């Protein structure tokens, strides 16, 4: 525990502040052990304390700044604080708090650095540190990139420990008993004679003390809460219909709005006729917004009906109107001029393929909608010198900035209240709905305006998953994979997404090759090249981002090479894998699935492996080739995460993510025709249903040195394992998603 021993003093400065009737503890400045010139420029505001633990007479509140879109982030963050604070989970309130740059996400920066997560060299760690600081400077309080756990793992425990030790100091002052004779349990400081003093009753004294800075984080063997199974804070509310989501938010005097903007994304509005809409019951106004119109009514349904009744002529799209044009743009991108990165170039792929029998294959993955079941919504109220925003968002600081710019109200006077999200999967990393609601609210000062997208508008304006294409060439020799040369072409997700925030991306976009270039394999001749396709339709981060397509490309092509070599799929992957924790994942999945055991007729199994977000995940899918099509029988998953914070949440998350990945791989796509998405709702954008959901057995491994998040890494290997299983069962190789274009499913 040497590393943890001094962490509070070395890496975090933790402060306390008096609040009305109590005290707040928090991290207010981040320092790294490396000399870093960027840190010399900290402004006063950035040194301000922001609380993780607030205690006053009314109780103990843990502030959980990472947003909860269903992944249990609030509960995970609370578990980390409570472990060290010595409170029980049923004694505390959880509050996402208000956005603040002190909540910037350090782990997300680390993942953007061009070093493989298996690279622990000084250079890699130093660069991650610089990226961390950049993240802080950009004030990125972002929930994304499976970073909630890695970002919070030490920081929140340290905050809990500092609060606990300072409360003990307060008790010492109150009782005259030495701190070393005091203990804590269940929200109380306990004296040697058994007298219990509630934290709440110590808050006022604690607020006057300089907080303890040198704390030792507890040894994992003593953990009471962390690593154990708990009931999530939201389980009862979500099981009784009492959980309020963004779409349920109401304010006195609130009006309901619906917008329509050009379904040819980014195209202009040429003209509109709102005569019919204005005459409809409950309609108050039809207002102009950027690129379209808004209807304001007294009810959501009336707003949707009236908006649909506005006749609008739309301009053309700034990207190819038909899919052929999109695929052609990708196909044309495999050239030197558009080469974006070649971070993996081992051996000599060119020499190895000279005169050899070369195995070649091309792969495709479509645009996909995020389509969380809760359509996006936002409530904005513009009043004198102040704006309030209530919405479910993963990027509250960007929302605050953008609303400030739009309304001209000072940044500090824009108040963003983050509400519970009915799913996101990356959808709420965009904030168009808030900007549009703000545009309407600016035209109706003093009136709270709720903008709710219809499902159709949500799907038409979804910034989708990237479209992507890959070309593989390889050779095998003496029953082994000898050469793998994979080129991947896609538009830059990061450039599209950051571009909408007015930011640009320097250097290569590592998402173009994520889930491929950093795989821990020692293939003698091994090259991964990213090609940047031109910007096409707007794209954004979709659960697992680049790896969602590349995990499929890389691992199906590897499967093809191993098949050509005549080797066993599991044994050859193990032979090629040099990274010990990843090898243990493969060994575990082989054991769980009893790999190699004889299968009944018409059954087939495929293995998929992908390291993404630093998490090595292996999955085995078993299918049966029935008269009605392919049936998914069973899936096994093993993942290396360093530490499973809550095994119950972990299992649910992994099972759901596997279903997410398989469902989209089988049946889902967004396509453009006449510049508009052809899918408008869940009848055409199909989604996995219960009868298609296999049994899924999950194992979380804790062999690695790094604690990782599990929101996304189960996604990339699933489609590969499915395609590989279908090949094993039928001999048909499926190189494109959705797979139901090529084979029937039950």
């Amino acid at each position, binding site marked *: 525990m040497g590393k943890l021993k001094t962490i509070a003093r070395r890496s975090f400065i933790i402060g306390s502040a008096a609040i009305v009737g109590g005290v707040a503890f928090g991290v207010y400045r981040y320092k790294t052990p490396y000399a870093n010139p960027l840190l010399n420029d900290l402004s006063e505001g950035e040194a301000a304390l922001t609380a993780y633990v607030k205690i006053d007479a009314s109780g103990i509140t843990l502030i959980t700044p990472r947003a909860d879109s*269903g992944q249990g982030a609030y509960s995970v963050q609370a578990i980390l604080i409570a472990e060290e604070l010595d409170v029980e989970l049923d004694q505390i309130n959880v509050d996402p708090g208000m956005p603040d740059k002190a909540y910037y996400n350090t782990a997300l920066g680390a993942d953007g650095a061009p070093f493989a997560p298996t690279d622990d060299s000084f250079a890699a760690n130093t660069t991650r540190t610089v990226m961390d600081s950049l993240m802080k400077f950009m004030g990125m309080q972002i929930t994304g990139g499976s970073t909630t756990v890695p970002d919070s793992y030490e920081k929140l425990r340290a905050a809990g420990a500092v609060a606990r030790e300072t409360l003990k100091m307060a008790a010492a002052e109150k009782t005259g008993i030495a701190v070393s004779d005091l203990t804590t349990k269940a929200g109380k400081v306990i004296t040697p004679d058994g007298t219990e003093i509630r934290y709440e009753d110590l808050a006022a004294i604690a607020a006057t003390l300089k907080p303890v800075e040198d704390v030792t984080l507890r040894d994992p063997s003593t953990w009471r809460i962390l690593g154990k199974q708990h009931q999530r804070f939201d389980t009862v509310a979500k*099981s*009784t219909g009492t959980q309020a*989501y963004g779409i349920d938010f109401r304010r006195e005097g609130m009006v309901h709005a619906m917008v329509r903007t050009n379904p040819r994304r980014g195209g202009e509005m040429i003209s509109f006729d709102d005569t019919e809409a204005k005459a409809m019951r409950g309609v108050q106004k039809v207002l102009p917004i950027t690129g379209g119109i808004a209807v304001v009514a007294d009810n*959501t349904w009336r707003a949707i009906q009236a908006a649909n009744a506005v006749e609008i002529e739309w301009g053309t799209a700034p990207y190819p109107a038909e899919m052929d044009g999109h695929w052609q743009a990708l196909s044309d991108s495999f050239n030197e001029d558009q080469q974006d990165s070649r971070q993996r170039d081992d051996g000599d792929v060119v020499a190895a393929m000279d005169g050899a029998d070369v195995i070649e294959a091309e792969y495709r993955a479509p645009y996909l909608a995020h389509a969380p*079941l809760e359509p996006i919504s936002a409530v904005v109220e513009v009043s004198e010198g102040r704006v309030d925003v209530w919405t479910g968002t993963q990027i509250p600081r960007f929302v605050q900035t953008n609303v400030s710019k739009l309304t001209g109200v000072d940044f500090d006077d824009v108040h963003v209240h983050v509400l519970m999200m009915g799913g996101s999967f990356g959808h709420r990393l965009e904030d168009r709905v808030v900007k549009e609601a703000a545009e309407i609210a600016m035209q109706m000062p003093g009136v709270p305006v709720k903008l709710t997208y219809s499902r159709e508008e949500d799907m038409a304006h979804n910034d989708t998953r990237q479209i992507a294409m890959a070309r593989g060439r390889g050779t095998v020799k003496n029953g082994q994979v000898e050469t793998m040369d994979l080129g991947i072409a896609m538009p830059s997700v990061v450039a599209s997404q950051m571009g909408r925030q007015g930011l640009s991306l320097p250097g290569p976009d590592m998402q173009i090759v994520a889930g491929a270039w950093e795989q821990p394999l020692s293939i003698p001749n091994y090259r991964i090249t990213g090609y940047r396709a031109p910007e096409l339709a707007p794209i954004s981060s979709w659960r697992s981002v680049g790896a969602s397509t590349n995990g499929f490309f890389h691992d199906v092509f590897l499967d093809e090479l191993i098949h050509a070599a005549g080797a066993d799929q599991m044994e050859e992957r193990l032979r090629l894998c040099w990274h010990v924790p990843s090898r243990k994942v493969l060994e575990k999945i082989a054991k769980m699935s009893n790999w190699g055991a004889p299968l009944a007729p018409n059954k087939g199994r495929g293995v998929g492996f992908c390291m993404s977000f630093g998490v090595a995940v292996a999955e085995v899918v078993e299918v049966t080739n029935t008269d009605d099509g392919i049936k998914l029988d069973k899936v096994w998953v093993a993942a290396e995460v360093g530490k499973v914070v809550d095994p119950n949440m972990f299992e649910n998350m992994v099972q*759901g993510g596997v279903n*997410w990945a398989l469902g989209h791989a089988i049946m889902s796509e967004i396509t453009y025709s006449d510049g508009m998405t052809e899918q408008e709702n*869940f009848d055409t954008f199909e989604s996995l249903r219960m*009868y298609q959901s296999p049994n899924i057995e999950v194992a979380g491994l804790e062999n690695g040195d790094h604690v990782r998040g599990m929101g996304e890494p189960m996604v990339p290997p699933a489609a590969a394992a499915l395609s590989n299983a279908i090949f094993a069962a039928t001999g048909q190789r499926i190189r494109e998603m959705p797979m139901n274009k090529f084979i029937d499913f039950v």
Partner: protein
Amino acid sequence: MKITVNGTQHDIDVEPDMPLLWVLRDELGITGPKYGCGIAQCGACTVHINGEAVKSCQVAAEDIDGEVVTIEGLGTPDAMHAVQSAWVEHQVAQCGYCQSGQMMTAAAFVLETPAPTDDEIDEAMSSNLCRCGTYPRIRAAVKTAAKNLSEA
């Protein structure tokens, strides 16, 4: 017109074709039933009318022909229905947005089918979408609910 929701009668003044879902959510402030698609594809809006599970986005106000029960009327945090208790026991929810509808479908189903097989559960529950993919837990929770109800 008058409608009865969770045992309370309400006077509503709406267009005859306004879907029950929006009557509940925007006119009566009953937000347990959720809007997900508006076209009977996702089931998030499922309520009971005369004990039968129906998609409230497809029932026009003028066609409401019986007592409406929403998730709020099925049970409360202090007095949960067997289906809700099973949902808590199995910690089914992730984002939870679909779960009100899932539970309303399940509650009607387990009354008709006290000892359901996996296939029967899959068939009954496949009209409700869960984008988080919690199907393995929904399946387990339906079984638990059916067992607890039949033993009660």
